[in-house]
């Protein structure tokens, strides 16, 4: 009888512990949307604490972003490749922290992959931009205007030839030979450009609206698509920055990629696009810059980064120059007053403000006109976190909207409920009072399962819900085995007491075996499964393990009392 008492004490203790573990989950799950909203406003810290101690919901249930990155260590110097993935994780973690996601999960997978889980965060585009960008910030000078004009002329004639060849007018068609005549024409153009030199500078005083001046698209396919844009009105100088209509951008890119054109571009300069598209005079335009390739200053010397609303409504990122960089930056700015200094982030130009005076301590990056506040915040975050040690690529992305998650929860909840009710009824009707006892055991089983999930901080996923539902079906098996055995023993004419004893004893081997096989499967799935599948393995594992306890301790305790009965309702 003392064994009986112990079982009762342990079970009661487990129930209390279970209730404590499950309490926060219960509160959170029964909260209405309005209440949750109210709590979010009044006491976000308490809500967060509640969420952390409750059963966590997987991305598939609460919505969120899952990204797998590959760190391209092959693209960097092998000497620095060691530990590049760890450093990249560190940088990404700092960036994600800046985003303010409640419980981000960042982990390494294999040798070169990083998994990033942002539960509850659904702005995939922004998350992608934030984790995917290398964030190398460089300050570069622009090429001088005259050299740029010369280059444009050369490019024009190469492309003109190329276009003719492409359209088949000159019928050279054979592409392998195409490069030869192209090389020839460039020399001619050199001469031509020299002669036209004065002309091209005069264009700029009219701000170079070539189309209006009637420069033919046929003979100047390249420059006719570029509108001179950057001019210092005070210093009366123009700079190689052109506005390009969005529809022309792809064409320009293709042209710049032609071998014949690439050959024309001197090694110390480079073309670069603006980071974002801008709207000017009702036109969508990208700005194309011609930069000097030399890096004048780098982002790692910036500190104390803060955001500010600019004079004209744009966003500005203020920074201070770290002491190691002050001399260098002062020298750079002092030597280039009235010239534009391009702020280049990952090879696109954020902006190219004119240097007004020698800058010693503090500076400002004026963001492009179309930059939103999010863009500015992203800029601040990546500058603070620093650059990635190697470029990364996104090799998997999974975005689940909050409404889809809610829909899954609803479906999971209702199908569990329906399945549970039918099973309870079936067992109750079939095995009468004994069935009702088994039903009580089943309810305990589900309660303990949820409590363990909450206590372990396990994550519930949609397949995890399937695991719970399956547990409902499978865990009844222990009771069915026992009951069928008791029935058989009763039929052979044994007493109630002897039948119950024999039933529990003889069914044990089969029950134990069946549990072990399910646990093996769950274990393998847990080790090799990814997120959602792992959720399934976890619920199945615990559901099945706990059912052994409920069958052999909880329902057996009740049966022990019934041993004294003369007849058994089974």
């Amino acid at each position, binding site marked *: 009888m003392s064994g009986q008492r112990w079982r009762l004490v342990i079970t009661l203790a487990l129930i209390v512990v279970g209730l404590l573990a499950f309490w926060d989950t219960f509160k959170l799950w029964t909260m209405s949307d309005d209440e949750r909203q109210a709590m979010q406003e009044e006491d976000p810290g308490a809500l967060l604490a509640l969420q952390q101690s409750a059963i966590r919901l997987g991305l598939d249930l609460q919505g969120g972003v899952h990204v797998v990155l590959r760190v391209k260590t092959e693209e960097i110097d092998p000497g620095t490749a060691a530990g590049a993935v760890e450093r990249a994780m560190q940088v990404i973690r700092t960036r994600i922290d800046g985003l303010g996601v409640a419980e981000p999960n960042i982990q390494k997978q294999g040798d070169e992959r990083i998994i990033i889980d942002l539960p509850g965060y659904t702005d995939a585009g922004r998350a992608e931009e934030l984790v995917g960008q290398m964030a190398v910030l460089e300050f570069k000078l622009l090429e001088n205007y005259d050299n740029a004009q010369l280059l444009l002329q050369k490019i024009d004639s190469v492309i003109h030839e190329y276009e003719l060849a492409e359209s088949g007018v000159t019928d050279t068609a054979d592409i392998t030979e195409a490069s030869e005549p192209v090389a020839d024409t460039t020399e001619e153009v050199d001469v031509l450009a020299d002669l036209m030199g004065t002309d091209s500078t005069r264009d700029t005083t009219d701000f170079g609206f070539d189309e209006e001046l009637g420069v033919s698209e046929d003979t100047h396919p390249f420059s006719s698509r570029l509108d001179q844009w950057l001019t210092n009105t005070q210093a009366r100088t123009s700079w190689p920055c052109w506005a390009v209509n969005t529809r022309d951008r792809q064409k320009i890119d293709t042209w710049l990629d032609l071998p014949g054109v690439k050959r024309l571009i001197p090694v110390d300069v480079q073309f670069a696009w603006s980071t974002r598209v801008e709207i000017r005079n009702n036109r969508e335009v990208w700005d194309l810059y011609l930069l000097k390739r030399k890096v004048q200053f780098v982002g790692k010397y910036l500190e104390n980064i803060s955001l500010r609303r600019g004079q004209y409504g744009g966003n500005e990122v203020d920074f201070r120059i770290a002491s190691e960089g002050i001399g260098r930056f002062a020298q750079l700015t002092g030597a280039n007053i009235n010239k534009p200094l391009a702020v280049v982030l990952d090879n696109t130009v954020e902006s190219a403000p004119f240097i007004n005076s020698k800058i010693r301590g503090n500076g400002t990056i004026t963001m492009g006109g179309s930059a939103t506040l999010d863009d500015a915040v992203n800029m601040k975050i990546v500058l603070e976190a620093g650059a990635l040690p190697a470029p990364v690529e996104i090799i998997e992305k999974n975005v689940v909207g909050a*409404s889809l998650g809610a829909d899954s929860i609803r479906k999971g909840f209702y199908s569990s409920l329906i399945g549970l009710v039918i*099973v309870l009824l079936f067992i109750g009707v079939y095995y009468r009072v004994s069935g009702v006892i088994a039903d009580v055991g089943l309810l305990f089983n589900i309660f303990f399962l949820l409590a363990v999930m909450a206590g372990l901080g396990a994550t519930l996923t949609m397949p995890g819900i399937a695991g719970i539902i399956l547990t409902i079906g499978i865990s009844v098996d222990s009771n069915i085995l026992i009951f069928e055995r008791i029935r058989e023993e009763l039929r052979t004419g044994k007493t109630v007491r002897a039948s119950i004893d024999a039933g529990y004893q003889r069914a044990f081997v089969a029950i134990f*075996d069946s549990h072990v096989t399910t646990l093996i499967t769950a274990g393998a799935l847990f080790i090799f499964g990814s997120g959602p599948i792992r959720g399934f393995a976890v619920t199945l594992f615990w559901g099945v393990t706990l059912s052994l306890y409920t069958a052999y301790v909880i329902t057996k305790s009740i049966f022990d009392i019934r041993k004294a009965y003369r007849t058994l309702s089974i």
Partner: protein
Amino acid sequence: MFRIIPDTNINFIGARRVAFGFSLLLVALGIFAFVMIATGRADLGIDFAGGVMLQGHFDQPVSIDNLRSGLAGTFPDAHVTELADFESPNAFIIKTKRPETDAEGKERAATIKNILAESFAGNQFTLDSEHIIGPAVGESLRKDAIWAVFISLVGIIIYIWIRFDFRSGVAATVATFHDVLAVLGILFLMGREFNLLIITALLTLAGYSLTDTVVVFDRIRENLKKFRSRGEFVFAVNRSVNEVLARTINTSMTVLIVVVTLFLFGGEVLRDFSLALILGVIVGSYSSVFVASPIVVEWEARRPSRFK
């Protein structure tokens, strides 16, 4: 005492020849399906093949044929399903598989979104979920799945061999493989997609079907102690199957109840998963009666032994 199954004495073992023929057919189908999957000719889900899956809904009704033909120009392999039971009406899932590179998956997703915005201008498409898997990830998921299957099958076999003598161990293993292959084959015939969840379901049903077999074998072991003479072997096995029949059917019933509710109300994500389990429960019950025990009987008939 309320009983669906009265005391039975059906001659299950007598019907073993017919059952073997039927089972061989199922297994052959399953092996064929397995070969098709292994060589990549079966319909693999985007988690294994790599690809793009977009789920979203339109503001106004859109016919699925319009949607298909709108996408067919750019993505002839695009697979479109309409979601009947999603909370928003006019919801669809669009999939395209096997991108060549990691970057291509991303481009495809963007292109599909553009096509939807252009072809159905004025009818806003809201994205509810977007899943892009590059070929490299697909490959590692395939590897992980193979490992999971391998480890759990090896684990199960080791357990069987610890618990049983050689013959029943072989019989139980055969029955378990039979069930997995049969379900694999039936799903293949039905043209279902093979993804991680299906593999999960197959492993779960392997565990389940083994449980069924174990219960029968436990009873055989027990009954053989009562019926010791050689002539009684077949009788003892058949009697054991009959004795545990009520349990087999009742447990199958409760599991069927839950997997059928899951199939009906669990939503798109779990539909094929629960279908595989439904098939698994049925095949698993069948095999514990008609496959596992008859193998032991056949073996004993050819090479008599003292079955323990």
